[in-house]
């Protein structure tokens, strides 16, 4: 059993990763979380659902992970007073998730320090909740301004700089409130929710297949990771395993997504320290990867290539040769560029020491993914819980201790080379022929499944609940940016304002993925 607790009865879920689910009582929530926390585990996601149509009130769901696997726990809440014990005192990362869950569903944490709204600005009233099944959008509409209470820093010479939601570059919208003395940043407070598109509500009116397209558009740069996690959740409920060829192709797509994004980020990180040469060079390489994607798989970002039950794109033998050549080209070029970055004094001067998150703080904050690995947090779903075909690939995890911009650059370089190696390996093992998918039209009734995939940014989780007819009752996509955004508020402390864009880019977190 992944968690030992006398009141906890877990059932193992079918599917690609080791996962369990179970129901708990309110009194057991904090002790179990504490137990997982003390054993080195983390909180991955927290969401809620409206089960009143089944006569059950509401439910709170949390996904925890430890070295044994993923554990999804559900807690029934009475319809009249849907409150639950606060989790953020154990896992600080739960703070924004709890607030978002209140904004969308009206279930709330007792106690807790911070009860400000999170995803809601002015689009609907504080007393109406979009994810309730009886939500009526018309009377809930408002055009109220946001009215959010930022924490104020006072003192001699302190002033505020407000940035966003529309930023100075080609970036997603969000608001940053800096308190500064001279050039030095004393505090940063983030305000998000600007791109809230009502994705979770939208899932509820979709078929399984339409849902796959939407999952692939939660955060466009991670479309493969989301589509795979969604498919994994559906396949877990249906207890089916896609054909082997589909699994190998999925891994190929996921590594190609990582390669493209790491190339792009490495280019921009050079650009942000005034080495526009870096941008030019890396984006030439990225464009070649995208063009190969377009020519071989029909989409430059591989959107809609993964479907529940398998994949919708195949690779021919000539295509394979193209990708082998691409590997050789990238390995050669990136090696040269890495040498140039490492020996460029101006670049290293800006990278080293900027935006540092010490390993101890990273552990406290539950930092995950690429940024976590740059601060000694050795979590990589492909390594700890290798779903097929990663169980045959022996992924080498890249970790580093320094936790600064330089470390996040090094981790990107290491992962880029590792992904190229994996791509070669996958291509070598991908035998011709074989089915691309199995039919998966409809899911069993009242099922629950979860999929977790290591996207380029970090672990992407998608949880799916079906109703009494097997339709999508609730889909919760979770982006690793929920975990890592709060860390950016810490990373900038004591740095100077002009370094913020660089530090922010070194994390490169998603706005749309957390705004939903």
């Amino acid at each position, binding site marked *: 059993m992944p968690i030992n607790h006398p009141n906890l009865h877990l059932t193992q879920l079918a599917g690609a990763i080791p996962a369990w689910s179970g129901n708990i009582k309110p009194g057991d929530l904090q002790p179990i979380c504490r137990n997982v926390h003390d054993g080195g585990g983390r909180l991955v996601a927290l969401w809620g659902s409206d089960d009143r149509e089944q006569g059950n009130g509401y439910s709170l769901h949390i996904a925890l992970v430890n070295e044994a696997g993923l554990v999804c726990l559900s807690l029934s809440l009475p319809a009249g007073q849907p409150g639950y014990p606060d989790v953020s005192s154990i896992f600080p990362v739960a703070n924004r998730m709890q607030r978002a869950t209140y904004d969308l569903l009206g279930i709330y944490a007792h106690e807790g320090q911070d009860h400000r709204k999170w995803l809601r*600005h*002015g*689009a*609907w009233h504080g007393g109406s909740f*979009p994810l309730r099944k009886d*939500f009526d*959008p018309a009377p*809930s*509409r408002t*055009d109220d*301004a*946001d009215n959010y209470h930022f924490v104020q820093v006072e003192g001699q010479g302190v002033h505020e700089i407000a940035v966003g*939601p*529309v930023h*100075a*570059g*080609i*970036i*997603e*919208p969000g608001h940053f409130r800096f308190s500064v003395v001279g050039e030095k940043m004393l505090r940063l407070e983030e305000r998000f*929710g*600007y*791109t*809230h*598109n*009502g*994705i979770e*509500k*939208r899932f509820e*009116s979709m078929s399984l297949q339409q849902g796959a*397209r*939407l999952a692939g*558009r939660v*955060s*466009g*740069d991670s*479309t493969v990771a989301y589509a795979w996690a969604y498919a994994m959740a559906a396949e877990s409920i249906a207890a089916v395993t896609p054909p082997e060829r589909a699994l190998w192709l999925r891994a190929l797509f996921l590594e190609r997504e990582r390669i493209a994004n790491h190339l*792009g980020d490495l280019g921009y990180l050079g650009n942000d320290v005034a080495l526009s*040469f870096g*941008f*030019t*060079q890396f*984006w*030439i390489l*990225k*464009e070649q990867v995208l063009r190969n994607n*377009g020519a071989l798989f029909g989409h*430059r*970002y591989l*959107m809609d290539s993964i479907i529940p039950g398998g994949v919708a794109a195949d690779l021919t033998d000539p295509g394979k040769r193209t990708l082998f050549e691409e590997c050789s080209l990238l390995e050669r070029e990136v090696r*040269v*560029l890495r*040498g*140039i970055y490492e*020996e*460029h004094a101006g670049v290293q001067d800006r990278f080293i020491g900027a935006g540092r998150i010490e390993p101890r703080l990273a552990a406290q904050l539950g930092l995950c993914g690429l940024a976590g690995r740059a601060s000694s947090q050795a979590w990589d779903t492909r390594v700890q819980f290798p779903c097929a075909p990663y169980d045959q690939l022996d992924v080498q995890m890249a970790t580093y201790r320094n936790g600064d911009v330089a470390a996040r650059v090094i981790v990107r370089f290491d992962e880029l080379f590792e992904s190229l190696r994996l791509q070669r390996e996958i291509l070598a093992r991908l035998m011709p022929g074989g089915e691309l998918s199995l039919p998966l039209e409809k899911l069993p009734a009242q099922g629950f499944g979860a999929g977790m995939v290591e996207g380029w940014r970090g672990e992407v989780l998608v949880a799916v609940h079906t109703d009494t007819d097997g339709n999508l009752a609730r889909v919760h996509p979770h982006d690793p940016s929920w975990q890592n955004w709060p860390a950016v508020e810490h990373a900038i402390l004591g740095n100077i304002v002009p370094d913020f864009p660089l530090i922010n880019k070194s994390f490169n977190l*998603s*706005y*749309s993925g957390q*705004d939903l």
Partner: protein
Amino acid sequence: MYQLIKQIIKTGIKTDAAPLPDEALRVTTQRLHEEILHVFGSALNIRHVDAGSCNGCELEIHSLSNAYYNIEGLGIKFVASPRHADMLLVTGPVSRHMVTALRRTFDATPEPKLVVAIGECACNGGIFCSNDGSPDGGGESYASCGRVANVIPVDVVVGGCPPTPTAILQGILTAVSAQKQ
């Protein structure tokens, strides 16, 4: 330094030829008078606004700056403020939380100004909105106002999810060339 220069020389010039404007992309009649056309000259400043996209369209707008599309080589520049812009490039269905920001950005852009809506979402609300509401699409939801034209006037729309950099470039050139006639 030697490595860096060697790499630049080895890389050579990658830029593709720019696409031709496409009249079919235009959705509005010419809004602007001929006498103001010379204002833009042959240089164009663009302000990008993400009004609620999934970030997919942004990836392709970034690609426009790579050596293959070389948008700066055409005299087109992305600027940091709407006050310096001739054109707004707007992506995403307009989330209700972005309406004010988008309107203010539009108002801050000096006349004459152009608006190009980028991507399926910006054209008709896309996957985030149910399109059965209004007869010509552009559906809304509790969180979203749907297409960009529901909030500010749009000159040219470019479909695709996301549109390719070539399609985006074509949309931009279509909007500009309309003014030159």
